[in-house]
């Protein structure tokens, strides 16, 4: 029996600093043991605990897609300003070649089967785009793409420098099988793209609720203002999905801190539809 508390060893093979403020980095990790890699079967939307012994663990959404074999990727924001998060700071101090641990995959995923055959509207804000990136990669894979309807993406950040995955965004822009709407709150001299807040852009884009599902991840304020837009467009709560964040420790539904009602976000989540959330006590 696999002990769910013991991390698997991984090696950092690539580090990308995503944003100009240097506080968001993407880490590519390769499993040290082949069998761990084989056991690590995941779907977009799942997360894992990154472990640095001596510092602790931090639950991070998986940013890569299972369609990208050989490695897994995590995009990590350094937490805190005055008092920085111990684990995320330590992660940010890592160099290529460092060995850390991974526990996972944990939690549920974006409901792939539910999304199949539907149009998917992906809405992301800032750093919370990570598992959406995973989902997009997954859906765009040539084996998977036919299983989904239209894919459109609204992704926003405060400034151009704060957009993650810039190269991928550019590559997706060029594709015909995905509609990209990348926006920033405020552009700069070099910014030729769209300006405007995510909710406004969603309204402008105005996706049809017909056979469509939207997946939303972003800062609470963004979600608060984006939800009404989708309700207005006629999306049912069952068809609006999001990924919750709660303080987690064990990641396997045992330590008892990440519950919302009887659901443990780490095990029964993090992905919930707003219909499901409506049934839970407002305790998050």
């Amino acid at each position, binding site marked *: 029996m696999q002990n769910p508390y013991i991390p698997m060893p991984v090696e950092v093979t690539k580090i990308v600093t995503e944003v100009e403020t240097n506080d968001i980095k993407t880490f590519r990790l390769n499993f040290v043991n082949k069998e761990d890699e084989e056991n690590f079967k995941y779907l977009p939307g799942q997360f894992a605990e990154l472990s640095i012994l001596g510092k602790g663990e931090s639950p991070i959404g998986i940013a890569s897609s299972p369609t990208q074999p050989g490695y897994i990727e995590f995009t990590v924001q350094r937490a805190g300003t005055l*008092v920085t998060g111990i684990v995320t700071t*330590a992660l940010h*101090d*890592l*160099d290529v070649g*460092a060995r850390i641990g991974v526990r996972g995959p944990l939690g549920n995923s974006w409901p792939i089967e539910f999304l199949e055959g539907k149009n998917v509207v992906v809405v992301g804000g800032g750093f919370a785009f990570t598992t959406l990136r995973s989902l997009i990669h997954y859906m765009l894979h040539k084996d998977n793409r036919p299983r989904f309807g239209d894919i459109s993406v609204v992704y926003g950040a405060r400034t151009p420098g704060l957009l993650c995955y810039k190269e991928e965004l550019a590559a997706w822009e060029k594709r015909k099988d995905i509609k990209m709407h990348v926006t920033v709150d405020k552009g700069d001299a070099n910014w030729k793209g769209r300006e405007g807040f995510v909710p406004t852009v969603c309204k402008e884009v105005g996706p049809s609720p017909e056979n469509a599902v939207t997946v939303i991840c972003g800062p609470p304020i963004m979600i608060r203002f984006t939800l009404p837009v989708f309700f207005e467009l006629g999306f049912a709560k069952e068809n609006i999905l999001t990924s919750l964040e709660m303080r987690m420790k064990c990641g396997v539904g045992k330590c008892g801190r990440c519950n919302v009602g009887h659901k443990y976000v780490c095990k029964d989540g993090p992905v919930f539809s707003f219909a499901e959330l409506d049934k839970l006590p407002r305790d998050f």
Partner: protein
Amino acid sequence: MSRIGVFVCHCGLNIAKTVRVSELAEFARTLPDVVVAEDYKFMCSTPGQELIQNDIRKHNLDRVIVAACSPLMHERTFRKVIENAGLNQYLLSIVNVREQDSWVTEDEDVATTKAKALINGAVFRARLLQPLVSRFIDVNPDVMVVGGGIAGIQAALELADTGKKVYLVERSPTIGGHMAQFDKTFPTLDCSACILTPKMDAVLQSSNIELLTYCEVEEVKGFVGNFDIKIRQKARYVDHDKCNACLACTEKCPGRGVSEWDEGLVKRKAIYIPFPQAVPQKPVIDRENCTFFKKGKCRLCEKVCEQEAIDFEQKDTFREVKVGAVILATGYDLMDTKPLIQYGYGKLPGVHHALELERLFNSAGPTSGKVVMRDGKTEPQSIAILHCIGSRDKNNHEYCSRVCCMYSLKFAHLLKEKTHGDVYQLYIDMRAPGKGYEEFYNRLVEEDVKFIRGKAARVTDKTDNPDHAGKLIVEVEDTLTSQFVTIPVDMVVLSPAMKPRQDAKDMARLFNLSTDKYGFFMERHPKLAPLSTMTDGVFIAGACQSPKDIPDSVSQGTGAAAEALTIVVKDKMELEAATAIVNSAACCGCQNCVRVCPYGAPMFNYEKNVSEINEALCKGCGLCAASCPASAIITRHFTNDQVMAEMEGLMEF
């Protein structure tokens, strides 16, 4: 993880002699996160600095540890070094393996073990170091010089010459200081007044110098670049703006006070200028001796003053002066020799102290330059000059006052010239280390001055020897012959110790300075920063730091002016970034920080119920952090976790 480089300095043999430096570097290489460790002969030298910089680039270091001399010595140097290599200067940790290790033991094992522990502590701490960004503040371009003696005058003139505005604060009614009392100066024997008064006049004439005589510093606020100093203008009772310096008032005045300038040998008027060449040439009223103030009537001065400048209603006034830097040149006091009853000063009229004799020599002095006994007419036929009165004396002042040997020789020469009497020098050691000093001594040896090596034990007027009746008997053991000798003389001159100003401690407190164990102002470093103090922007010059002669005081005045210039020449200056800040998420609103801070930096935000620190006022002492029960205050560069980590590293091995 961090990428730490450790650089071990040999300091020639200073460190390498007792600390096994290569072993230290080897040890450092075994520590987690240490990417590179090297040792080198002189880390502070150019090749040493380049070594560090190359390694930073080559190994992509993000923390640097230098095991070398005390951080007080070279922290700034190495900060610059790493900054020039692209690292934030606060990502440096200095390990003191010289002053606190290699120099204080002879045992190699002990020294090396300790050095290892210290390096380990530094590594633990270095991991947690954070880059800090300095803040810049506007600098007030003006300078204040406190003390109008020769050092202060020099400093003020130099600064004024560069175009800087200078406030020269002097507590007495005139500038000039002790030097104004001297007749001749050693060893060149040029006339003191002749070289001093032009400088005093230059001060007066300089449009860049605002002379604030009869003033005292009352309160000091602010910090380097932005001092806010409150000055008390003591009431002069004479409106100097109106006064045209006719000095008619001083002629008519019936009041009499003791002349400070003449060391109390004569009286002066109650409305007076201290001496004829005083600057400014405008009188003040000595309230204690003024007939009007004592008896309620007189006002003769008022009557004779055509300018109507006399104002008995005048009160002390205050003004705030803003300056960027301050030079303290507050000078010295001469030790009061009365308590040394064995020398009889104050009891035996023939016993004089050095400054009294200076006045006797001076043609502007009470005797118009004649050396006579206190009766005003008798010329002494034999004179003994007693060195080291209160100096080099464990019971009084342990230090050497530095100038007495030389001025005693000067006295001998002048006495020979003026009296043709016998002159005895009673000295412990003859100290003549200045330029031309030894030659001066040799010249005096040839002038038939009697040198007796021994410290005078006693001066008495009691004797069984009828030949000595009426004489002062100086008793001394001649240490060259080991014989006890008694010398009958007419006059005894004491060369008392120079000591810190009586109120030096108060002054130190005002400006936040340290004083040494005698009470002289403490310099930041005895060798490398003799004019700087622990308070940034406050410099010291002259005898307030330790006894000095005129050439040294003048050099220091010039030097301090240059130091002050380094600050006020810039529009903006960088402030120490290691200040405290409140992590408001953890603040419990207890206000302890507000209660304890000596600088009033923390303020309580009643709306948010948390404290906030004004970093411009923060000096980074950390008192608030230690008083914060919730550990919500982060004292940058000395954070709780940095200190705790360093302790952990120090205690591991």
